[in-house]
């Protein structure tokens, strides 16, 4: 039997795969001729990025070497671009004049890069990223060092950027959208990716709209790329520009031949074009109104073409979900399926900020719809399989996010204990709410969210320490209808959790509250009393030099540097360093109390003196008198350092091993000033008898003969918790340094209102020890960042206000009492 003649236009991965399958199914059915516009054999285009970065050579990515073509009797024309198809004569013609007759034809012309038609796009030095020639051009350019500007922060653009960086160029990525790879990643993963890309020294500018590519002066020789200008006027110098802004199907040849074209060459499910003897395959083909750029569906197409050619007429292509991975060493990224939010979808999110891990599963009707993973992608294949099979995951749901190794394991049941509680068991101690009241409120008022329960019952609405319990009561009452988000949003104004907000403040360089509200899409115009103070702190902690404190976003106590009392008066607590005072200070306090008729004077638990019942209008005058005696604000109102409690130590005590009072004073002098996520209380005890009660403080020091034991994470308030030992130091100076590093780490990682013991529980004692104690380099960096913050923070707020700062706070706008009385 006479063999049929099969001509293939294009020699990419898809036709390569189709031929492999065809030769398996029907080895002798066709005489095959391939025309390749590129002067080479079939290679793995996906692996161009490792070639660019230097991790692989071209030889390593060849799929079919010259021998393969010989073995299968294939005629390969390298460097022959087909310029015309004559469907009537059933021939194709190459640019070099070769005419080949066909019985069956496969068009696999791939895609062409989108060139953004800005002025200058034709300048020398403007490259695309499609084939080996592009890679060679980039490698050549990289030899000259300089800066490469990559337009497009998608898969290709980022791979090109990483490769060029590795070749020694400075690289800037310009991306039109707010987050990188927005088609494959949700914004959260997009930001993690941006951070990782930036950590490699690659500049990323999002929302960057390229206006012009600027060339060199034509008087100085043939013009070439000099810079890229954005529509906001920013100009970035560039020795090359890589356009990676997308691809479009290369359908010109098919169009000229009169085949049906839409975005690509339109094919029916059997992969045939409008001419049944002509197949279209790969990125140039459009099936089910979609075009494809990832390899998996293209290989599926190839299988269908091969089967059709081999005579299996019912073989059909139906596009299925695809998965994406970024091929940049050290950045683990995986996405698959559809992960957009929608009302009928649910999601499970796992975030581990310390490890930069983010996983998000989108489910609908107990089936996996989409997966996005960043940092740890080891379960990508497993999730992808569940997704493609549309497997019912209801059984796995409890542990699904943890991946395959946890699948099917019985989750622990923390519910049993709560279920066993009687109705009158108190759940919320702050507000005196018992279990029965929460249950009946949920049932009677149809409450379904934690915020609702807080609003109606006040349970967990004060200190929040019973939140877990309240949620368990809700779960018991509502059953599966209660579905707490894995990430607790900061407040009702946003879906973002605290860690995301902090990360995004850094990633997007947000430097004001309005910028945060805008960029992170707050649902309220200016936040609420919950989020604004938190944002104010995060901005202050992130940008100690740039950010101006927003007093209207501070709770009244921090706004006026005194503690509001139930009758609207204030209490005033001056610092007594390490609990030490003098006759002069006591005399000044006594005089102030007399002069301003302060009703109550009390010694606090933190070893200092509290004057209660001061009228707001009197505050500046009270402070002025205290300032005169050398006293400054004790910050008894602040989310910052409160007191350093001490015992008398080796100065007086017969058991004292070290100068605990002196160390306490040193610590307090070093640490006061900067704001922290929540209040910070310290104590220094001169011996293990621990008279200063250091083992229930945020940070406690126990002096011993050999030096200083540093304790951390105690609590003696809502929770009672003994400290844990962080480590040991031998000098006072080292101790102060370690404590400063701890405080700075807490400032950087702690969530607003999260005390040190809760932060420690979340990030782990080991992680704190590693950074603040063991790794001396990291410790020094923390200490330096703390010092930077202290530069502007160690200013007595009382003195500033006695000198007139924020005077409006302490004066009424108008006094109409006398006016009325005169009438």
């Amino acid at each position, binding site marked *: 039997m006479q063999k049929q003649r099969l001509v293939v236009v294009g020699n990419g991965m898809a036709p390569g795969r189709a031929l492999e399958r065809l030769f398996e199914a029907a080895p002798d059915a066709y005489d095959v001729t391939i025309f390749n516009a590129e002067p080479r054999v079939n290679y793995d285009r996906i692996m161009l990025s490792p070639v660019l970065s230097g991790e692989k050579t071209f030889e390593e990515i060849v799929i079919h070497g010259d021998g393969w073509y010989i073995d299968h009797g294939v005629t390969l024309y390298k460097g022959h671009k087909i310029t015309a198809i004559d469907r009537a004569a059933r021939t194709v013609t190459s640019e070099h004049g070769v005419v080949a007759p066909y019985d069956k034809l496969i068009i696999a012309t791939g895609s062409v890069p989108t060139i953004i038609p800005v002025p200058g796009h034709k300048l020398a030095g403007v490259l695309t990223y499609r084939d080996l020639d592009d890679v060679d051009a980039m490698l050549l350019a990289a030899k000259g060092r300089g800066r490469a500007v990559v337009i497009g922060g998608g898969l290709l653009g980022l791979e090109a950027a990483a490769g060029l960086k590795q070749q020694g160029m400075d690289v800037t990525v310009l991306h039109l959208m707010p987050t990188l790879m927005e088609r494959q990643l949700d914004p959260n993963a997009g930001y993690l990716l941006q951070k990782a890309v930036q950590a490699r020294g690659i500049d990323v500018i999002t929302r960057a709209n390229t206006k012009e590519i600027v060339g060199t002066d034509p008087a100085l020789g043939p013009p070439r790329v000099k810079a890229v200008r954005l529509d906001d006027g920013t100009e970035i110098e560039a020795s090359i520009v890589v356009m990676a802004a997308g691809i479009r199907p290369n359908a010109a040849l098919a169009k000229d031949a009169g085949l049906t074209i839409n975005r690509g060459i339109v094919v029916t499910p059997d992969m045939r074009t409008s001419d049944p003897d002509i197949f279209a395959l790969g990125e140039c083909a459009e099936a089910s109104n979609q075009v494809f750029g990832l390899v998996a569906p293209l290989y599926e197409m190839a299988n269908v073409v091969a089967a059709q050619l081999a005579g299996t007429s019912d073989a059909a292509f139906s596009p299925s979900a695809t998965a994406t991975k970024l091929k940049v060493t050290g950045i683990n990224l995986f996405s698959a399926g559809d992960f957009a939010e929608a009302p009928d979808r649910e999601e499970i999110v796992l975030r581990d900020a310390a490890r930069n891990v983010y996983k998000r599963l989108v489910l609908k009707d107990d089936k996996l719809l989409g997966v996005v993973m960043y940092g740890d992608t080891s379960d990508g294949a497993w999730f992808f399989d569940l997704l493609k099979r549309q497997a019912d995951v209801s059984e796995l749901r409890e542990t699904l996010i943890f991946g395959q190794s946890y699948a099917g394991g019985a989750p622990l049941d923390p519910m049993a204990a709560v279920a066993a509680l009687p109705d009158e068991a108190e759940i919320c101690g702050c507000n005196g709410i018992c279990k029965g009241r929460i249950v009946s409120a949920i049932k009677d008022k149809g409450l379904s969210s934690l915020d609702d329960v807080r609003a109606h019952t006040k349970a967990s*609405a004060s200190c929040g320490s019973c939140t877990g319990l309240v949620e368990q009561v809700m779960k018991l009452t509502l059953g599966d209808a209660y579905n707490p988000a894995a990430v607790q949003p900061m407040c009702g104004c946003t879906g973002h959790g605290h860690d995301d907000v902090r990360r995004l403040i850094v990633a997007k360089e947000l430097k004001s509250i309005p910028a945060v509200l805008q960029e992170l899409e707050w649902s*309220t115009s*200016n936040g609420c*009393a919950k989020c604004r103070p938190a944002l104010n702190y995060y901005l202050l902690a992130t940008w100690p030099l740039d950010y101006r404190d927003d007093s209207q976003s501070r709770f*009244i106590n921090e706004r006026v540097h005194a503690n509001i009392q139930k009758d*609207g008066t204030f209490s005033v607590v001056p610092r007594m360093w390490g609990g030490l005072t003098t006759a002069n200070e006591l005399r000044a306090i006594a005089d102030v109390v007399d002069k301003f008729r302060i009703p109550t004077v009390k010694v606090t638990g933190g070893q200092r003196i509290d004057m209660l019942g001061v009228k707001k209008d009197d505050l500046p005058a009270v402070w002025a008198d205290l300032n005169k005696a050398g006293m400054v604000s004790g910050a008894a109102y602040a989310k910052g350092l409160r007191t350093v409690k001490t015992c008398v130590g080796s100065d007086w005590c017969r058991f004292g091993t070290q100068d605990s009072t002196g160390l306490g004073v040193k610590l307090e002098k070093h640490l006061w000033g900067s704001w922290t996520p929540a209040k910070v209380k310290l104590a220094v005890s001169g011996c293990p008898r621990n008279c200063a009660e250091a083992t229930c403080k945020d940070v406690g020091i126990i002096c011993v003969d050999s030096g200083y034991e540093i304790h951390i994470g105690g609590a003696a308030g809502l929770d009672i918790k003994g400290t844990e030992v962080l480590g040991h130091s031998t000098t006072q100076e080292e101790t102060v340094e370690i404590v400063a590093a701890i405080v700075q780490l807490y400032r950087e990682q702690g969530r607003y209102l999260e005390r040190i013991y809760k932060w420690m529980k979340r990030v782990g004692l080991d992680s704190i020890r590693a950074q603040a104690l063991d790794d001396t380099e990291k410790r020094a960096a923390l200490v330096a960042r703390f010092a930077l913050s202290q530069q502007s923070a160690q200013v007595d707020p009382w003195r500033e206000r006695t000198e007139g700062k924020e005077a409006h706070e302490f004066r*009424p*706008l108008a006094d109409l009492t006398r006016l009325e009385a005169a009438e």
Partner: protein
Amino acid sequence: MNMQHSNWIDVGALEDIPKLGARLVKTPRGCLALFRTDADEVFALDDKCPHKGGPLSQGIVHGKSVTCPLHNWVISLETGAACGADEGTTATHKVRIEAGRLLLDATSLAPSSAR
């Protein structure tokens, strides 16, 4: 200095109140709090939370609401009513802005006989 425009009393300039802040006006009937929103609207309320009498002027202003500094009740500046699940209302007073000056309705400031 306070000037009278018919029954409206000039109590100060809009600029005297910080954006998203409040100032007090002392009256024979007790203190009023004048709030200024981000959009430069001004509202006058009794400086008393309907819950436990907390000084609303010391709270955080957001949107057209203020959060009481004592127990975090959120009070609508427009109506004086507690928002969400809380119940209670604080008296509101008429105030208007004219050429950057704040004019307070004097009729509500007379000593209340029911006090």
